[in-house]
């Protein structure tokens, strides 16, 4: 077995160790490289920035703990921005296993910003039915959620004053980790009920949402941890996403180096095999 062959069959646990260290070390010893803001993330930020006080901002946390590291910082940054702008914030989730996370996020940020439940914000909770929930919200919000997460009747809550359905929402953002997520909110929500909409999603989903972004069906997109870091930079309140960017950099470079090494060995092995076959013939 040649050196290249041996290197290509290296114990995978060595690669695991490299990745583990590349993640851990920058988290322990951060450098803090500057983060460039993309136009996609700026789209969401600027729209929220343009909303007048007490506008209705609807946010759906369509993710579960599996995507927490990517979408949790996005949710925190968006809520901080919305509360700072004194918007009325209406929140919910379409993912059953994301209910606890959504509740924690809303409660934590509202407490931090001194906002009152029922007056400045409401967490409607989770409801089964996926896309049917979106349509039903577009028809009548109070029928979809007769009570909020805490059991209080939604009808009569000051935060929902003048809001009958999704038609009365000024801006909506779905933070989606899959289906139902951003696409479902467009197809079953915005298509008929004509509210302005932005999106946040995991890195895996982001490339698939660019057609909606290009056609203007969504006016901004926060993609993955990088998108969250950009949003944190925009609102000037750095959090877990910015802290994770150095580790993100290190792991990306590590993978690029691994891919380059793998190709180097692959081509040297191929050349050696070619030479051998020439000698053989």
């Amino acid at each position, binding site marked *: 077995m040649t050196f290249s062959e041996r290197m290509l069959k290296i114990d995978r646990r060595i*690669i695991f160790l490299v*990745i583990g260290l590349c993640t851990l070390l920058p988290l322990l010893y951060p450098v803090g490289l500057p983060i460039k803001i993309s136009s996609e993330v700026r789209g969401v930020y600027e729209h929220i920035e343009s909303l007048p006080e007490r506008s209705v901002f609807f946010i759906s946390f369509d993710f579960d703990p599996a995507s*927490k590291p990517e979408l949790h910082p996005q949710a925190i940054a968006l809520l901080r921005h919305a509360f700072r702008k004194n918007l009325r914030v209406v929140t919910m989730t379409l993912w059953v296993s994301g209910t606890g996370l959504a509740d*924690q996020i809303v409660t934590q940020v509202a407490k931090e910003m001194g906002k009152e439940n029922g007056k400045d914000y409401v967490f409607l909770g989770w409801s089964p039915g996926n896309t049917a*929930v979106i349509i*039903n919200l577009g028809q009548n919000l109070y029928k979809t959620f007769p009570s909020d997460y805490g059991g209080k009747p939604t009808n009569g809550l000051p935060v929902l004053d003048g809001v009958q359905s999704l038609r009365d929402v000024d801006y909506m953002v779905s933070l989606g980790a899959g289906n139902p997520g951003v696409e479902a909110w467009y197809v079953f929500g915005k298509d008929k009920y004509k509210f302005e909409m932005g999106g946040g999603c995991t890195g895996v989903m982001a490339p698939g949402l660019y057609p909606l972004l290009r056609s203007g069906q969504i006016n901004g997109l926060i993609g993955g941890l990088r998108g969250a870091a950009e949003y944190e930079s925009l609102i000037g309140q750095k959090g877990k996403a910015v802290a994770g960017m150095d580790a993100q*950099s290190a792991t990306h470079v590590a993978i690029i180096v691994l891919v380059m090494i793998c190709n180097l060995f692959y081509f040297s092995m191929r050349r050696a095999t070619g030479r051998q076959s020439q000698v053989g013939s």
Partner: protein
Amino acid sequence: MIFLRRQLPLLITMVTGLLFAGQYYVPHPSSEQLLTSATKWLQIVGGFALVLGVTSLFHQHAAKIRRKEEGWGYSLVLYAGMLGTIAVGLWANGKESVEGAMTAFGWVYSYMMVPLQGTMFAILAFFIASAAYRSFRARSREAAVLLIAAVIVMMGRVPLGEYLIPLSGDVSQWILNVLNASVRRAILIGVSLGAVALSFKIIFGVERSYLGGGKE
């Protein structure tokens, strides 16, 4: 009996399918009322579907414990986890927090479910790195193009990459916004055409697999 078991369900699919496809184009109040009621019903029926989905696990692991199959102890752990969560959940009225204070159910969620599910997916990071090292090779021209695009995007989406190669940020943005968007758009159009065709096949009874097997 065949009518009740086979034809009537197909008829229900056809009537409801055509009705709600047509409803989109009829903004009359009674038509809108129909949509409100039907989607409200779907919310409730969706809850039952969820229960149907998760309870199939009950039978699978109960059988494993009964027969004392290999690894039945783990099935016991699964049952203990499930019953324990249900017990604290019902005790807390299904709420993770009350007035901002965490309940026992919220504790199980935050300190058990969140780290367990999060880590399950986090270990994929190691496997994707290992897979990249083992199989991401420029064996052909197409594979080389894929590899170069991946490297540019990986460099361009992190601060260190943009710092080392300043152009990588703009190039990766262009790849995403233009080249990637065009391909995704074509896929989206193609998949949507397929989905619409499938929906029509379901409505007109050509596609019947959703009815399941069993006796006619």
